[in-house]
């Protein structure tokens, strides 16, 4: 009787576990199952499988990149595009996805590393397995990729944000405190921009008092912005340099009734910030064209897989974007765009 019971329980437990695992795989790795690399969908010619890995799947910024990537894939016709990534920005999950794709034997993997060190091993393994590896949006560790599709140099972005802030505050003679609200302390992009912003700010009369790291968490970003506004009475501006900290900082300024007194600037997609640009909390939104970034990345991936793009090339033919320069192993998308109340309504992403 007791043995029977035990067996009954065992099989019951095994069944539940299986269901649970199946359930979490289906939902957790959403999209991973819907397009395996072996599906050459009808046509006789072999399709190239290109994987595009964002830092975080599901946020507007990367979704607009994916839009451009799909456009490029449709235009090329010979490309099977897999767009997938962790929904919480966990770099360990990025590494797992790269490993999975390596096992499946895809052609090109384009990685936007959230923590370059964490994914470096998986990227090297993919290269060793003969898969072409690119980075896009964020740079990886040296030797883990053949090209980096650089949306805009850190120099251009960092200086662009500082210039926008100085201009919005009323010119180079304005004095006051500013803070930077970043993403995680390990985010490579943000750290590179900060390295440019610090010396750029030193040339102005603005004083950088602190840098906050709320992570990709909207509540923390809002809280940090509220706290710095209370802490530094001479605060004139906040740089919100991630897609979460920018609206978070703007929300804090608005809720505390400081719109117009404390200006917020940073990087974001235009749609995300339209509300704050219209009510005057934000005067400038700095960004590159994210759709073009996804588009260029997939074109570069295809050229690389076909052998049209080789180390040492100084330019690449990029479809509707025309010819794009290559500096060393950086494929350059171009300069930054600044969205203001005058032009923000012309953009919809």
């Amino acid at each position, binding site marked *: 009787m007791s043995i029977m019971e035990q067996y009954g329980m065992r099989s019951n437990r095994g069944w539940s576990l299986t269901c649970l695992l199946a359930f979490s795989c289906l939902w957790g790795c959403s999209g991973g199952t819907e397009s395996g690399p072996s599906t050459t969908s009808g046509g006789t010619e072999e399709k190239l499988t290109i994987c595009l890995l964002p830092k975080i799947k599901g946020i507007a910024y990367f979704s607009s990149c994916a839009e451009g990537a799909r456009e490029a894939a449709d235009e090329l016709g010979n490309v099977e595009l897999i767009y997938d990534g962790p929904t919480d920005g966990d770099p360990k999950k990025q590494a797992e996805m790269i490993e999975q794709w390596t096992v499946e034997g895809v052609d090109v993997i384009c990685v936007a590393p959230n923590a370059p060190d964490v994914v470096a091993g998986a990227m090297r393994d993919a290269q060793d397995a003969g898969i072409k590896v690119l980075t896009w949006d964020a740079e990886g560790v040296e030797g883990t990729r053949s090209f980096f599709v650089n949306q805009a140099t850190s120099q251009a972005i960092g200086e662009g944000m500082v210039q926008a802030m100085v201009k919005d505050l009323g010119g180079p003679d304005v004095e006051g405190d500013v803070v930077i609200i970043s993403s995680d302390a390990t985010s490579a992009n943000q750290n590179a921009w900060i390295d440019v912003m610090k010396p750029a700010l030193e040339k102005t009369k603005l004083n950088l008092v*602190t840098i906050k790291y709320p992570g990709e968490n909207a509540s923390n970003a809002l809280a940090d912005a509220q706290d710095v506004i209370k802490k530094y009475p001479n605060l004139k501006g906040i740089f919100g340099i991630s897609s979460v900290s920018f609206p*978070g900082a703007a929300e804090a300024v608005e809720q505390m009734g400081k719109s117009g007194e404390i200006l917020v600037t940073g990087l974001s997609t235009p749609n995300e910030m339209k509300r704050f640009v219209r009510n005057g909390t934000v005067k400038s939104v700095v960004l590159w064209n994210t759709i073009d970034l996804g588009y260029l990345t997939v074109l570069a991936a295809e050229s690389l897989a076909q052998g049209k793009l080789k180390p040492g090339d100084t330019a690449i033919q990029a479809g509707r974007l025309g010819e794009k320069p290559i500096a060393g192993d950086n494929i350059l998308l171009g300069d930054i765009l600044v969205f203001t109340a005058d032009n923000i309504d012309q953009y919809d992403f």
Partner: protein
Amino acid sequence: MSSLTDIAIRVLRQREVGLLLLIIVVTAIVSTVDPGFLAVGNLKDILVRSAPTAIVACGVMLVVVTGEIDISVGSLMALLAALMGLLISRHEWQLSMWVGIPAVLLCGTLIGLLTGTLVTLGKVPSIIVTLGLLTALRGATTLLMRGENIDGLPEGLQSLAKSGIGGLPLSVWTAMGVLMFTGVIITHTALGRRLFALGSSAYAAKMTGLSETRLKLFAFAYTGFLTALATVVDVPRLPKIESGIGNGFELLVVTCVVVGGVAISGGRGRLVGVMLAVVLLTMVRPVLTFLDVGEAGEKWTKAIQGLFILLAVITDTVVSRRPTGSARGPVPVKPSSHLESEGAPA
């Protein structure tokens, strides 16, 4: 051993006293550095940020008291926020708030029931079930949101969440209500005593005819309901609903429960301790800002939260090893006593 140290140990065994002392010391240090920390506006902000954690911790505490755990509440919050956005945002289905919000509360409760069912009837350890749900619910959120952020929640709900009634946001009033309700369940109902009894000794509880399944189902469903409640009152405070909402929230809540003195093995813990832990851990971010520790300091936030867990566990072990009284030792798994004695806290 002198009676004085004896008293000191007895006092320190009350986790609440230690936490309160820690809160007072930290506040004293910070307000010496910057008196602005004690400004009404700042204290109110800390209260507002504590509210969602306090609400959900009431549920997770009861789950832990029964000897189980729930580490999925962060993802559940994201899913429910997405659902709320889809139902009532003026850019989405535009349902009435009076339809949408009950639907969100119902959905939270049902997911809690599902978790409880997998744990009790499915016999899967709760850590595994909720670990799976942590990923699964986050993935479901992304699917539901189709890569877009959602804004345009009803203005009335937004202003209740941001400025609120009588100077305090809706979330704070809700947290007070939930606290009182949970307090009454724990101290004044048979249900509360049974939850603690089950956690102290599942065997003894079963022998006395308590239904383990029903009690655990209640704890998980209550947690699901409270997570939905916290979502409804707190998320409209944020600029928009995005799929990263509640990132790390599950760990914060579990940390509060453990630091608050609830035994991870079940059967022991007090609501007051958990609430003090919620306040203490919510204070970490603003404290670092007001101490002006600079950019390096912010990187310590997570390390400090981790330190609190370790401190809690270490004081627990050290203090309970001292040979005074009987209060805090590990619970023996004998089918005797403990039903009433260890159970009901104040």
